[in-house]
């Protein structure tokens, strides 16, 4: 049984430091504003298959919420329901204070989305992509040009302005997708695996930009399979498995509470690992055996037992992380059915 935590995001510390004169790229959240997203009892059936089972969550202004789960857990379905691309089966959703799907048209004017699959117009130039998208939001031409200039500078795409999309690198395309999502100065930014398939340089550049947006107070919902990305950017995580939320809260607290503070990964023969497992039961730790390895998740300082590991060929001691939490909650087996 996994404990379900109440909605308790901490307010991002940087939020108050950005002044309105900074010309933020996305509207900063007002103080004391109501929740940006409130989902209650949301379920979705595709035929007989229950894709989302009665989930509830809320996102406050300025929060960056990491939405995690194995493939097929229902993350993309949930996001598509928020955007009206998939119909809900039951439940209520409020986005930016308005009931959806009833008010989707008004609400979508204030949301930016970086989709999982690149949907740039490949035949158009970088600039035309932004201006065309601005047109969908009915943004006046002059204002759109101004905003496009600003975004191209922010995402280091200025000298690629006239380039056709097919000539861009993967990193440039992803940055342009993010720029496009910001063209309407959204109050909520939805990022569906924003750095998938990027090299480390491009990924770090994306993270830097996202971090700036977060500091300016942009509310974000982020899905990713890169735990490092989520750990860096999110104030709070929601972990979804088989259509249900299995945990939500501050990632650090969740890791400490549900996994432990440190992890020992030890390789060895079954006999060796059996012996070690018995020894480590003297310490407050949770043990796991998987594919010839012993994982020891410590809930207290077990340094006094480290000498026992000295004889093992390979072992590793490291702080526990989000990936451990993720595996702990969703298991090690593949989920694609």
């Amino acid at each position, binding site marked *: 049984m996994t404990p379900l935590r109440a909605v308790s995001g901490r307010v991002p510390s940087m939020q108050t430091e950005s002044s309105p004169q900074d010309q933020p790229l996305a509207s900063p959240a007002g103080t004391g504003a109501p929740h940006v997203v409130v989902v209650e009892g949301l379920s979705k059936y*595709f035929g007989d298959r229950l894709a989302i089972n009665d989930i509830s969550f809320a996102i406050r202004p300025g929060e960056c919420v990491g939405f995690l789960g194995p493939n097929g857990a229902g993350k993309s379905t949930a996001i*598509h329901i928020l*955007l*009206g*691309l*998939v*119909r809900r089966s039951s439940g209520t959703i409020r986005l930016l204070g308005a009931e959806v799907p009833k008010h989707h*048209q*008004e609400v*979508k*004017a204030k*949301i930016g*989305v970086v*989709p999982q*699959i*690149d*949907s*740039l*117009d*490949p*035949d*158009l130039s970088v600039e*035309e992509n932004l201006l*065309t*998208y601005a*047109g*969908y*939001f*009915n943004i006046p031409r002059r204002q759109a040009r101004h905003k496009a200039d600003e975004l191209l500078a922010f995402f280091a795409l200025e000298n690629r302005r006239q380039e*056709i999309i097919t000539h861009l690198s993967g990193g440039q395309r992803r940055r342009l997708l993010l720029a496009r999502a910001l063209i*309407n100065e959204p109050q909520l930014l939805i990022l569906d695996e924003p750095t998938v398939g990027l090299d480390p340089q491009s990924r770090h550049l994306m993270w830097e930009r996202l971090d700036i947006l977060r500091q300016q107070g942009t509310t974000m919902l982020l899905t990713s399979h890169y735990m490092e990305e989520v750990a860096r950017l999110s104030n709070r995580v929601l972990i979804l498995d088989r259509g249900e939320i299995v945990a939500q809260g501050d990632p650090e607290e969740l890791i400490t509470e549900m996994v432990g503070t440190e992890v020992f990964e030890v390789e060895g023969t079954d006999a060796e690992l059996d012996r070690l497992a018995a020894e480590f039961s003297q310490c407050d730790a949770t043990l796991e055996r998987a594919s010839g390895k012993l994982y020891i998740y410590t809930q207290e300082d077990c340094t006094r037992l480290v000498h026992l590991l000295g004889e093992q060929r390979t072992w590793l001691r490291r702080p526990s992380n989000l990936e451990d939490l993720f595996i702990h909650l969703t298991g090690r087996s593949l989920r694609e059915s």
Partner: protein
Amino acid sequence: MKTLAFTKIWVRNARVWHSHILATLIGNLGQPFLFLIAMGYGLGRDVGPINGLSYLQFIAPGLVASSVMYAAAFETTFGSYTRLAMQKSYEAILMTPLTVTDLVLGEVAWGASKGLISALIMVAALPLFGVWPSWWALGLLPLLLVAGIFFAALGLIMTALAGNYEFFNYFISLVLTPLFLFSGIFFPLDTLAPPARFLFSLLPLSPVVDLARMLTYGRFEGPLFLKIVIPVMVTLATVWLARLLLQRRLIQ
């Protein structure tokens, strides 16, 4: 302004078209012009006049109508399917305040525009073949626009049903080619045996060919009212159905 939101989709497509304008024009105009030369000039010399028109004059207006059909239907099958399945443009558009209705109206308006562009170039080129249209030919504009809307919507229905590009082969072989051959472009329908005549006159391109010929030469005959009202009604129903099917495809 909300009711004109679909024009944004039109603008998007026009921008893309602008970047490979020549290839699409040749693609759309090649076939009707080649038919005009091969049948009208080549075969036409050995075919006697039909209803007082030379064979070239007889087939020219129908070929103009067929160019609308091909240009509009190809745009909303191959073009729209690419945007739907390959480029994910529809998904990107539906993440903005635009709706499926805007999307359908925009795509249909664009397909119809491409049909109209092809047709107008053909009409403008007709004097080169010794075919001089009457002033009534201005009436071709609304006629071919309605035909363009119909065939664009029909193509979009195919796109909503398509699982891959091969699906459109059925559409071309089983729908467009028979319409091209049996809608009275190449032979007059009114001299056929009654069952064949009845059957062929039901084809959606038939009234367009008939009216196009009347307007081109300013010679009117027969019950015009039904020939206008029925195609307009059918066109509206087709757009409605395209919206329904695309909505079903895009919003699960």
